[in-house]
């Protein structure tokens, strides 16, 4: 940032650390709902300036998604939207209006990275497809997210995170062998896809810095989830018995890798502890902690191979014993004895978890409509340039003037004209 830019910086722009990894990198986020916006959040954590383009008339559905702060109505009350847009600015533009589109193009000039998740083919009318953007700004990096990819016969297919979850095969890997898949509580792919997408984006920025060349990053949610399915693709392709949902058994090519391995009930309503025992030393430690002579001396359970033959009985025995314990206390005792064990935490549990607190995972921030609030930071922490939360999630169009005047560099009168022309929108204005 030049001295002139710094001196003329208006009120309201908060700084990432000047030495954050992506300090000085500008990101134009044209995506909506979940996966795309989360990419913007990750970039913001590492210091990029991220602008979300929204419409005041066609609201991002995330803005009306629960939970809303204290259950209150309002387009700025959604915690879901808040999580997906932490750290960003918001500008309301009508891309179908020449004035709005011109501003968007000027923001492309400002940007190093554009995030978009429009259906392949939809962006050409706005000259926001990669080829047009590259012509306008050769070094631009465009992160294009979609269900199935930018190319191929099914490129135009719409979809949402949990549909990818089902189509990719990931959902089929979650649940019990005697039942339907049971992992649809949240749109899991939406939260996985941003990780490799942003790693590639930063790699592309690195390449651009060295060569001046930008590029398009084509991320298909389907492909990320198949990549996340580990050796399941290779197993099926090799003609071996498929990897399939197996409850909490830890199987590898039909062999049991750990026993016991599962979630066992503890005291309280719907309280569980995960325990995984990979060898006989851990088994003996588990028996010692539980202090149950029957378990310890039962010949069926002495070795891993023999435990593997009696998984159901083992689980049933263990469940009877763990049910009397407080989950945290059992975890602490098992961990002290070197047994991998962990309480199954719900959201309250995460907030109260002493390790997450010690890590500073929850960061208090001030939100204009929520008041003080615990935001969450990111779990990969460079020590010198840790992830930062630059600002709370924006209110709709909160930064219209700031973005249009200072990033898109419109003059005061041009900005006024853009409002009159309908390019810049205000929510609730007629």
């Amino acid at each position, binding site marked *: 940032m030049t001295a002139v830019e710094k001196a003329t910086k208006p009120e309201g722009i908060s700084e990432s650390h000047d030495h954050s990894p992506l300090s000085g990198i500008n990101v134009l986020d044209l995506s909506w709902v979940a996966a795309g916006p989360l990419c913007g959040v990750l970039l913001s954590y590492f210091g990029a300036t991220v602008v979300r383009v929204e419409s005041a008339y066609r609201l991002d559905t995330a803005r009306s998604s629960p*939970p809303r702060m204290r259950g209150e109505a309002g387009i700025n009350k959604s*915690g*879901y939207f*808040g999580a997906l847009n932490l750290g960003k600015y918001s500008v309301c533009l009508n891309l179908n209006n020449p004035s709005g589109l011109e501003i968007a193009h000027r923001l492309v000039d400002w940007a190093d990275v554009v995030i978009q998740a429009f259906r392949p083919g939809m962006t050409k009318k706005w000259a926001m497809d990669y080829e047009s953007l590259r012509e306008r700004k050769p070094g631009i990096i465009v992160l294009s997210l979609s269900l199935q990819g930018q190319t*191929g*016969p*099914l490129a135009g297919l719409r979809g949402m995170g*949990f*549909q990818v979850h*089902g*189509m*990719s*095969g990931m*959902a*089929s890997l979650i649940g*019990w062998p005697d039942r339907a898949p*049971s*992992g*649809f*509580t*949240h749109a899991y792919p939406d939260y996985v896809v941003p990780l*490799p*997408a942003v790693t590639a984006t*930063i*790699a*592309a920025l*690195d390449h651009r810095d060295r060569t001046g*060349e930008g*590029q398009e*990053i*084509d*991320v298909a949610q389907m*492909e*990320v989830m198949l990549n996340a399915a*580990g*050796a399941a*693709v*290779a197993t*099926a*392709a090799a003609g*071996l018995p498929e990897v399939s*949902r197996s*409850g909490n058994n830890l199987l*590898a090519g039909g062999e049991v890798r750990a026993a016991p391995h599962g*979630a066992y009930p503890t005291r309280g309503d719907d309280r569980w502890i*995960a325990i995984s025992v990979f060898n006989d030393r851990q088994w003996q430690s588990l028996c010692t902690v539980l202090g149950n002579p029957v378990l310890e001396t039962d010949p069926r359970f002495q070795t891993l191979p023999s435990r593997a033959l009696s998984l159901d009985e083992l689980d049933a025995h263990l469940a009877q014993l763990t049910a009397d314990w407080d989950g945290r206390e059992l975890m602490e005792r098992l*961990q002290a004895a070197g*047994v991998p064990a962990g*309480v199954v935490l*719900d*959201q309250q549990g995460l*907030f109260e978890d002493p*390790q*997450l607190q010690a890590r500073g*995972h929850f960061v208090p921030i001030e939100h204009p409509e*929520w008041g003080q609030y615990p935001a*969450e930071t*990111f779990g*990969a922490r460079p020590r010198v*340039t840790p992830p930062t939360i630059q600002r709370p999630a924006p209110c709709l169009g909160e930064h219209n003037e700031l973005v249009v005047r200072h990033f898109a560099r419109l003059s005061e009168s041009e900005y006024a004209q853009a409002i009159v022309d309908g390019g810049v929108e205000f929510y609730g204005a007629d």
Partner: protein
Amino acid sequence: MTAYYTDWLDNQILNAEPAYLSDSQPVGALAPYSVLDLTGEIGQICGRTLAELGALVVKVEPPGGDPVRSVGPFLDQAGPTDASLLWQVLNLNKLGITLDLDHPDGPALLSSLISQFDLVIDSFQPGYLTERGISFEALSQVHPKLVWLSITGFGQEGPYRDYVWSDLVGLALGGQLNLWGDEDRPPVQAAVAQAYYAASQGAAVGAVAALYHARKTGCGQFVDASMQELVSFTAGGPGGITCHWPMLGRNITRSGPALRIDKIRTRILYECRDGYVAMASPWSPTKMPKIVKAMARDGAAGFLEDPKWAYATRSEPIAGMWQCTPEDAEAVEALIGDWVKRYSRDELLGLAEEFGLMIFPVRTVAENLQSEQLRARNFFQTVHVQEPDISITVAGPPVRLSLTPASVRSRAPQIGEHNALIYGRAGLNEANIEALASRGVI
């Protein structure tokens, strides 16, 4: 120094048949970077991701081989220590050396290698390396741009610092396990390690950010990655699910085939003739009429033909909508369910396209091998594993870069396969290397 390795790689091509490449070997976006990978199962995908993006990644194993080599399933025809499909998948594109850090001479040997690398990744319990005299602080004095990424269950400090982990424990303490399963059974994992995937892929973001910073400023740093925190990200982003607690004082827990927000359960999974489909919530004026139209064509729409249902909502109604009871909702879902059962997944996909419905098949991973779309995109890569013609097919990289493509170039390394190369670059000759091997240091 890195250029030497990449030239070497280009020349060798390491038995890979890169069917997806056209003519030349493209240079990856991370091509200038070299990485020393000391990780266990929790962190091996991190190195693979960086290697796909072009970095040179050298995997370090104990002389007897990494424990992941013993995890099945196994490719019968491959050699005993290279047959693990998990080992292959997690370690594609990497070179391999051996080093015994528990041998008295091991740590010094490791330290002598580090100057060749921009990034070191490990996943040892906190304290393991410092106990052996390997300290990031000391190493960065002589190698100021060094980035060291440590991927652990819970981080380098805190009350869980000494906790031992597994993928299941990571899912549990990260808040993910709580979200999966049926209400009448314990929470349940995925059959493939998702906590490890989150840890590895989340750590990779931190690594490239630190490398980017190091290139610009000349300053490296230590990156402390916690699986627990990274799992919490994949369980709902920075608070998308977690915020139910501070905002409303409630918890979201597993709900089987339905999405459950507070008391409202919206069915997502429907059984069909040959399996299951996932359907977006039909409860909106744009969606409900479409599915009703499709059902009506079969005479199956029943009471849903009443246009009032287009304005029904499960949650608090906003202008123009009315809130239906849970019993109503069940009846609607049952009616839709009966209609869905008539059709196969492919037929429903056809109907979805015809009527603009948001219905998608639930497939297995194996079924995706036949996907026209994935094949058209050359997503599945064939990797030669062993002479004469033993190959495996793997899922390709999760991203595509238009100018510097991510690519799967080679199989996982054999034990100590590149000892001569890497130790040679550190100034050791053949005799030195043999001596180290005979003493069990490598």
